[in-house]
């Protein structure tokens, strides 16, 4: 109780809100993506970042399908956003099923029900820093007017994209002391604190939530999606078991199309969970995917919904989920009426019945 000084509960909850909302840059990028969706013929829209010297990275999307499109490009090593250096003008396709520039990616997208795409570069002084990508389920969906609108929106995206790239570089490149300094600075500026108050608020939050100083600083300075999803190896036929994602609540391991989940899924890691599942769906396009959920000790409705969405990205019978009898997940699925979803196959580990 002695620690409850001038920077007590009020600041702590403001900091929590700040972390929940993100530092604001993502919101602007999100607004632009939403604008692109509303103002063109697109059904799905997203931004892809081109971090200097690194593979393209999805940043903001209206829905998981955009992430799937990006993952498929990486997995197949072809598509409009694979090579940043070659990307200087906009690219448009009105029939992805018969797209000769990216035949495999185009075919995979058409299987997902996407037949048109429009991708425009975002540039800062002649360097392509990202792309704005629009997708539609209709053929020949994008006309000249849509291209003009998308290019206009892409111009406005240059600054938010630069900020997102800066935040990533900060998070990954800076040494811990510098990163902590930046985080304290952000707290002072955004919450109106003095330097000692910012340090105290930072430490109290860190102890209470049991997060590493570096991770908390990265969350304050950078985008709210940290910690990052570690890319799993994409070697065909490889069965290397590796860590796909982990945070303080959950550890997800696997070999690409077969994952094991240990721990808890709730709102705090639901974005990462969504990315893991979309990646799984992208890798398993046309094949079976397996999820071992026997050590999933907790999942809420939002997490269960992502699981159902992942199943719906795949063909019927393709997603196999192994659970314990009487699992809470099964109860949620039953209550929500998701037990009728054909693409999701339940395997119950013990003899307890899984029916309602």
């Amino acid at each position: 109780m002695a620690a409850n000084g001038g920077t007590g509960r009020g600041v702590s909850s403001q900091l929590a809100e700040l972390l929940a909302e993100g530092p604001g840059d993502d919101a602007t990028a999100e607004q632009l993506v939403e604008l692109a969706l509303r103002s063109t013929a697109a059904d799905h829209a997203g931004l892809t970042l081109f971090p200097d010297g690194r593979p393209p990275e999805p940043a903001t999307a209206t829905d998981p399908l955009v992430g799937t499109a990006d993952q498929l490009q990486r997995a197949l090593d072809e598509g409009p956003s694979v090579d940043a250096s070659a990307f200087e003008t906009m690219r448009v396709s009105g029939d992805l099923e018969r797209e000769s520039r990216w035949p495999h990616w185009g075919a995979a997208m058409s299987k997902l029900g996407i037949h048109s795409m429009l991708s425009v570069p975002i540039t800062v002084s002649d360097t392509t820093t990202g792309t704005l990508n629009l997708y539609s389920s209709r053929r020949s969906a994008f006309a000249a007017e849509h291209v003009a609108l998308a290019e206009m929106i892409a111009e406005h995206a240059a600054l938010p994209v630069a900020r997102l790239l800066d935040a990533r570089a900060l998070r990954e490149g800076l040494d811990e002391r510098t990163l902590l300094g930046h985080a304290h600075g952000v707290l002072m500026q955004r919450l109106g604190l003095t330097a000692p108050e910012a340090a105290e608020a930072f430490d109290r939050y860190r102890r209470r939530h049991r997060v590493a100083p570096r991770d908390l600083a990265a969350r304050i300075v950078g985008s709210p999606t940290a910690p990052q999803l570690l890319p799993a190896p994409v070697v065909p036929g490889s069965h290397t078991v590796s860590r796909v994602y982990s945070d303080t609540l959950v550890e997800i391991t696997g070999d690409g199309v077969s994952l094991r989940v240990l721990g808890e899924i709730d709102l705090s890691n639901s974005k990462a969970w969504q990315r893991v599942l979309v990646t799984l769906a992208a890798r398993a396009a046309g094949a079976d995917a397996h999820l071992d959920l026997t050590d999933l000790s907790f999942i809420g409705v939002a997490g269960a919904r992502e699981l159902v969405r992942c199943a719906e990205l795949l063909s019927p019978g393709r997603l196999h989920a192994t659970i314990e009898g009487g699992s809470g997940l099964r109860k949620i699925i039953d209550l929500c009426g998701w037990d009728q979803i054909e693409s999701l196959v339940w395997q119950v580990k013990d003899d307890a019945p899984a029916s309602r």
Partner: protein
Amino acid sequence: MHRQADSGGHQAMMYSAPAEFADWAVAFLGRGVDADAKVLAVAGPKHARLLQTRLGSGSGSVEFIDPESWYTTPARTMATFDLMAQDHADLGRAVHILGEPPWLDRSPFEQLGWHRFESLLNLTFRDRDVTMGCAYDARTIDPETAGMVHRTHPVIASGTDHESSPGFREPVDFFAEYGASPLEPPVGPVVSTDFDIGLLAAARQFVNEQAGRLQLPTAGLPQLVVAVNEITTNAVQHGGGGGQLSMWRSTDHVVVEVRDHGTQPPDPLAGYLRPDITNEPEGGFGLWMARQLCDIVELRGGPGWVVRMYAALAEPTD
């Protein structure tokens, strides 16, 4: 003030003698059978036998259900009603239900929950071909309960006549006037903790530990933890980023209260009717889930949301 009230509607029968009940019930069920509706009689064993005798061969078209297994909790019974009405509406078939409430001897607090349920049925039945007749024994119910029955049923049957109920209140008005009784102050010691997005897991752990200490049967614990998680998640997403979680033990229940930091008071009817599951999560979704998973859920404004979830200390009998 006579009206034909048997094609859709929600009527109460206040009977004073077994014969009066039987005359009304046989006529009520018979009209459902004649209309080729799905006909249910949720009646206790004594009345069920009486009706089977009186209906004779006609009783084969009536499905008899034990009231204790039908009237489980208001929210779960509502979900059952809703699904059944929808299923038969999809088949183009009317539904005719006779119900004998078994909850009249429960605590006043639980009874209020069931009166709200009776009021909400009027919304569930709107635009659907469902007819519900609720039988109350006028000799045993107190005047206060009788008053509530008049407020929640638009039609009162007596003998074989129907009269519209002058005391009837639309559900919204009923909730405003009678549904939002002040919450009882907690009894005994209260334990509390704050939560935000980073502390949702800690909040679940808190519920796990405290429920054990308060001697909640372990069978009820997983459901309570999911319910609390949905309500605390709601608070983080829609209620100002977090709130306070408190727990205590009442006579019959372990009580979990979530007060969020929001400024918008709730719609008192929120979370009773099954939401569209395919939509993005809204405030009412987590609440619907909590209502399904808990024995009682109370919702108030104060100034954001105050949600109380009750898990029974006694093991369920079924």
